[in-house]
């Protein structure tokens, strides 16, 4: 049958693509043994393989947005996450570039492949966020962009002759970079997350975590978690969307202990103990990016890519998008939006 032939990686990736049955394995998943105690074998489970083949052919989209002040290591982290030069740092951006006067949205797409699975990854960068003297409402362009993607998807969905596979440009995940001051969140962080946690999955990340010792890290994380809770900010994975007890216990542990992940990114390799590892070399030691004793990068990577990737997409589609859709349809009295402009003209004429 299939168990022997499947590669471990493919199994792991595949398991995230299948909506049912909902297994949430840790990394990596062992091949499932088929229960030979059944009276007879029907063959329903072959559907998994059929879906896998199909998805491998079509590939899938993942759109990740990075938000934070300039210099917090956003581009480097994304490159490290996907082990390729996918962020704008590689596509011609040099360090001499000036800080833009307003927040810009730059989306760059790449196709990366692993174990026969193709992923169309889009990294959406937001240069200029939080860098000005007056940062009031600097989250508005970002909120606008996210809603525009929902609008695009909605328009396509409502179309009479719609495409079989609607191109998904919606933001599935937003990594928000917190500056490692060691004190607390900044007012801008609170404002941004308050506004955006309702429209997109926000994963707060503590950037450049090699600035803090272990105690400082633990204290800071506790402080940030408390502040987020006190201010009613629901970051991903949101409590209300836990589907069953298993989800809840797993997510609780992540929410209350690991998040926000304190990460270090690097695209340089060094030789440590005979192995080549990604890291940062300083006069007092080498910081290993994938060493859990040094930083939590591996946890973030496993969380976003290996275990919760599909869930991120689902929450975006089933919850955030549906909220937007419901609001949109309500606003238009149940009519599908023909063009946003003509609708508005109608309204103004009345």
């Amino acid at each position, binding site marked *: 049958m299939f168990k022997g032939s499947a590669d471990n990686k493919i199994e792991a990736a595949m398991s995230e693509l299948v909506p049912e049955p909902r297994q949430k394995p840790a990394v990596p998943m062992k091949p499932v043994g088929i229960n030979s105690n059944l009276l007879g074998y029907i063959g329903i489970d072959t559907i998994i393989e059929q879906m896998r083949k199909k998805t491998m052919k079509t590939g899938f989209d993942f759109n990740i947005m990075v938000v934070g*002040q300039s210099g917090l290591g956003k581009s480097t982290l994304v490159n490290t996450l996907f082990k390729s030069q996918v962020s704008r740092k590689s596509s011609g951006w040099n360090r001499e570039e000036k800080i833009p006067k307003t927040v810009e949205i730059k989306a760059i797409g790449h196709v990366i492949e692993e174990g026969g699975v193709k992923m169309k990854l889009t990294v959406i960068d937001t240069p200029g966020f939080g860098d000005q003297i007056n940062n009031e409402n600097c989250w508005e362009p970002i909120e606008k962009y996210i809603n525009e993607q929902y609008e695009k998807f909605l328009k396509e969905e409502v179309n009479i002759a719609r495409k079989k596979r609607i191109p998904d440009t919606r933001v599935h995940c937003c990594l928000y970079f917190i500056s*490692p001051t060691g004190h607390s969140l900044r007012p801008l962080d*609170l404002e941004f997350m308050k506004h955006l946690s309702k429209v997109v999955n926000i994963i707060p990340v503590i950037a*450049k975590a090699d600035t803090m010792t272990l105690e400082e890290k633990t204290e800071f994380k506790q402080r940030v978690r408390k502040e987020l809770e006190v201010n009613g900010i629901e970051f991903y994975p949101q409590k209300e969307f836990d589907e069953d007890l298993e989800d809840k216990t797993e997510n609780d542990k992540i929410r209350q202990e690991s998040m926000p992940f304190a990460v270090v990114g690097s695209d340089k390799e060094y030789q440590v103990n005979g192995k080549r590892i990604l890291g940062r070399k300083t006069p*007092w*030691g080498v910081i290993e990016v994938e060493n859990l004793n040094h930083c939590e990068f591996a946890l973030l990577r496993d969380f976003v890519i290996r275990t919760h990737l599909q869930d991120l997409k689902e929450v975006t589609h089933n919850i955030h998008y549906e909220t937007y859709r419901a609001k949109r349809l309500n606003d238009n009295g149940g009519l599908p939006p023909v063009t946003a402009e003509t609708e508005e003209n109608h309204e103004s004429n009345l």
Partner: protein
Amino acid sequence: MAKQPPAQFTNPETPGYVGFANLPNQVHRKSVKKGFEFTLMVVGESGLGKSTLINSLFLTDLYPERIIPGAAEKIERTVQIEASTVEIEERGVKLRLTVVDTPGYGDAINCRDCFKTIISYIDEQFERYLHDESGLNRRHIVDNRVHCCFYFISPFGHGLKPLDVEFMKAIHNKVNIVPVIAKADTLTLKERERLKKRILDEIEQHGIKIYHLPDAESDEDEDFKEQTKLLKVSIPFCVVGSNQLIEAKGKKVRGRLYPWGVVEVENPEHNDFLKLRTMLITHMQDLQEVTQDLHYENFRSERLKRGGRKIEDEEVNKDQILQEKEAELRRMQEMIARMQAQMQIQMQGGEGDSSAVHGHHV
């Protein structure tokens, strides 16, 4: 040159020795008795390690009961000025150090008004000194002028932020700016060099005047000259602060303990802390002088010029007011004359209408 009567300093081996070569010693002894005053201001966003650095520099705990506010509280807060004074004594020399902290700087979402408070504080100190200097009792003038400002640049950015540029341009004519990059253990050596160069380029590009160490005099010894050269090249300083003692290589050092190694505060290969401390201590006198001779004099001349102009304005106004008052007087006199004429006509003639017509037409 009058010959002083030989005092106990007469050196019998050199006849004609007057003894005023001993003057510097007398000055030195007097100043040691009097003690030194120094005011240092620290400016920078919260969380950049300012307090830790100050505590490390002066081996004290300037902020024992410090409460760090959360983000929600910071939204409401404006920039405060907090001055704390410590008296440090070392080998009989007393230093009265005042550290002026500026919590709230750079925290708000809109930092437009961030530096107004700070600039008014600096001006206020100058104003007070000017007032004292022009006063009657000049014996015990307290010098609270800011002699030096450590401006903290974030090591996480790619250089200067717009706020950094605006602030430094606003105060570079009022105070000596020493740019400092704290939490330097975030950066590898290459990143540090790159950041320093970037910052120096941007400072030049925007015409910001930071404090420049004076070149060593030609009569100083080689070591000092070498040291000065080294210091000049290392600005802005990349420092790490800590007052925790860590065990490293068999001895106790001040540093930070990471899973991948120990950063030693006083190790010149790890960061520029020693350089910063040396610079501050050896140039404390110079910093005070530049504040007195350059920044204070600038302020004083501006202030006195401005004060003069105000009086001229008032005189001009007085003339105008006088003219206006005279015109008004004339008008009133005319009106009274007319009314008198009318009354006379009314009394003389019976027909009020025709006589009224014949009255003066104004």
